[in-house]
């Protein structure tokens, strides 16, 4: 059964068709959510919310774009929303740096490297960070990123390049 048929079946209330669509896309959505949040619990919640939102709005999906692009668009939006909420809460209750330190167990050099790179990634503007993670970590093509984020392909390339340049600056400073 192809995706269009699965979607029609889901709209008719077929749970098995829903599960099939979910199985095809959930692992990648979860991986992306985890890469963007570094938190298993939040990644799990975001994946769940993504599919709940997608299924509840499936009647609006006109199948002009691939289902995969559509579900990733919802996923990125859901994750960014969760991260903003989390950042607001973190600003109120706990220092982010302190929270990061809890997970670090490597040698002091590696600890500093990971901590600096992660801090630099967190400090990137959201639009650069999202493009960088999708491209460099999750292996999305610039065309796919452009589709998901509704931006031109050239903009995706620029964002990834600028994000890398920022991170290189951070690493160069660490070497000095």
């Amino acid at each position, binding site marked *: 059964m192809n995706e269009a048929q699965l979607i029609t079946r889901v709209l008719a209330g077929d749970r098995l068709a829903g*599960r099939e669509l979910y199985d095809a896309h*959930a692992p990648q959505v979860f991986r992306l959510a985890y890469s963007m949040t570094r938190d298993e619990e939040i990644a799990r919640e975001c994946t*769940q919310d993504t599919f*709940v939102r997608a299924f509840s709005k499936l009647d609006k999906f006109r199948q002009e774009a691939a289902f995969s692009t559509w579900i990733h668009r919802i996923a990125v*939006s859901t994750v960014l929303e969760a991260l903003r909420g989390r950042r607001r809460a973190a600003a109120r209750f706990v220092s982010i740096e302190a929270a990061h330190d809890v997970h670090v167990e490597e040698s002091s050099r590696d600890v500093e490297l*990971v901590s600096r790179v992660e801090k630099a990634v967190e400090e990137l*503007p959201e639009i650069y960070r999202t493009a960088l993670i999708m491209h460099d970590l999750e292996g999305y093509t610039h065309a796919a990123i452009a589709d998901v984020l509704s931006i031109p392909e050239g903009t995706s390339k620029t964002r990834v390049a600028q994000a*890398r340049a920022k991170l290189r600056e951070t*690493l160069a400073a660490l070497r000095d």
Partner: protein
Amino acid sequence: MKFSEEDGASMEEEHLDELIRNTLAESRRSPEPPLDEMWAHIERKAFDQAPRRATIVAMPAHWSRWATPAIAAAAALVIGVGLGWSVAPRGSVVTRVVTVPAQSVATIQSTEATHAETPANSRANTDANTDANTDALRKNSQAPHTTLAHATNTPSASNRVVQQPVIALLANRFDDSEGSDVSRYLVRTAALLQALPADRTTTKSDTAIANRAAELLTQTHLLLDAKAGSDPTLHRLLEDLELVLAQVARLRVQQSGSDLQLIHQALAVHDVLPRVHDATVEANISD
């Protein structure tokens, strides 16, 4: 084989990029997704709601004793309201009273009248108020909501009552039609913010941008008052947009490069454009 300095720099960059990628891949390696556990939650939320809707139709027999008169009363109410709308004089029901702070009225008026047409006294007052507000905005850029509230609640800004034509989005619930109004508004706002020049260049287009910002600012106020504004995420975004648009609208009266810098800063610090994009997706998720 010789390497130029440029080749060396490029190799160094590639090496650093790889190191960054590896570091991130290591620290952000995803665990196995708990597929079944997540599906149980999704199934409950996405599929178990349909039968619940069905139970409203399949009413238990003992309910029909009181439900039938209640439905009849509701139907009579709907018909009554419909009749009321149809027989009321034109104009009396197609207007809605909206309370707008004087500051907002000044902004609305200034979009309609050109600066030259404004009487000297009132122009001076408007400029003075706007200057005071902008100063407050600058001083308080970390707390835009408070600043704006302060600016519109000063004793001098006594509230006036303005009659506005009913706008469908105000009268309706936040349904598909309002969603598309919000979506249209967000798309227009995003286009305006993206069209902002990076630095101070006094051109005719600056005035056009400022005028459009004033128009969108009015729409922002209306949306904040509407049902759409009761959604907390959208409300926060509208409040941030209100602040930014107020600053952009001021570009037409003050020619200063620092104003533009402040606007770009506000856009970056509050992630305004990505949030506008997300809200647009949310208002109308479609392919």
